[in-house]
């Protein structure tokens, strides 16, 4: 964290190497948020790049009251949600793009054992089918150390609303996965 503070101070003074360190540290997180919301890699990458440009130009306005990651994810969330609203991107596209129609593949081979890696792949596809706001809440919760307060700060929703949404969304994901995978999911324990 101290190292990160030094990078921020140096980047504010125009030190490009320090800013590059921040980009390298957070690029996967920002890209993940953008991708979960926008569902398309090329659009998400463009938006993630735009997020870092915004961060660079407004770094002076970061007061350090919240964590840098919270401030950064707020910019990422708002930028991606804005783009999703303007472009009205279809939510199914990335799920199909990942592995084709995985549900049909699974049913064709009912005896197939589900590895942890497979389950994660199915999970990502299930998240991709959520609408942008729901997908971002699930992503931020598990990406951001499960801090409901900070997710409320990022999204502008109340903490109670976030908690309720999380219960409901995870139930929906659990139902989707158990429908598709049946008892295989319990063997994962």
């Amino acid at each position, binding site marked *: 964290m101290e190292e990160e503070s030094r990078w921020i101070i140096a980047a504010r003074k*125009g030190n*490009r190497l320090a*800013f*590059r360190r921040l*980009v*390298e540290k957070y*690029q*996967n*997180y920002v*890209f*993940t948020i953008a*991708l979960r919301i926008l569902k398309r890699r090329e659009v*998400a*990458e463009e938006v*993630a*790049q735009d997020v*870092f*440009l915004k961060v*660079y*130009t407004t*770094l*002076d306005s970061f007061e350090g009251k919240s964590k840098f990651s919270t401030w950064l994810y707020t910019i990422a969330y708002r930028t991606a949600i804005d783009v999703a609203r303007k472009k009205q991107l279809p939510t199914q596209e990335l799920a199909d793009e990942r592995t084709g129609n995985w549900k049909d593949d699974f049913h064709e081979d009912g005896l197939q054992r589900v590895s*942890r890696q497979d*389950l*994660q792949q199915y*999970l*990502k596809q299930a998240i991709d089918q959520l609408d942008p706001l729901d997908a971002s809440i*699930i992503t931020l919760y*598990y*990406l951001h150390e*499960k801090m409901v307060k900070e997710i409320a700060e990022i999204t502008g929703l109340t903490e109670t609303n976030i908690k309720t949404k*999380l*219960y*409901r969304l*995870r*139930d929906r*994901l*659990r139902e989707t*996965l*158990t429908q598709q995978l049946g008892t295989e*999911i*319990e063997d*994962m*324990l």
Partner: protein
Amino acid sequence: MSEREDLIWKYLDGQLDADDRKRVEDTLETDPSFRELYMQSEVLHQNLGALETEIPSMRFAQNVMDSLPAVRELATGPLVSVKWLRSFFGGTIALLLAFFSSGVAIAPAATAQENHRIDRMIDRFYALFELIPANIMIMAGIIMISLLVLLSLDRWLQKRFLRS
């Protein structure tokens, strides 16, 4: 969402007090359907927590860095900060005041007829300027006007860039 599911998520999120945690653990021992629901939820919870982040293209960081030069130098703020501007104009006003005060002190004494105090001070101020060579006054004027033009241009360019 049923109360059972609600309870399981709160348990997994660590939001229950000791009594409720005990209640969940007891139910897990005695109720197979609750245990099944719990196991499914726990698998989901663990796997969501273990989801790897997505990775952008290899050139992502470089692309970000390549797009920076056109932005930072112009958009971070005016070339001359407000602090420096305040210091500059404050200093100039202080100098003028000091100049005027010393002028009053060293200018030739007023005649007995010059009894109006303000008129007397203005005359002394003009008398002081007469002591300074004209070319120095012109150069100082040009420098001041140039500074004001450049500062205004800086502000205008910054506002224009931020708008775009």
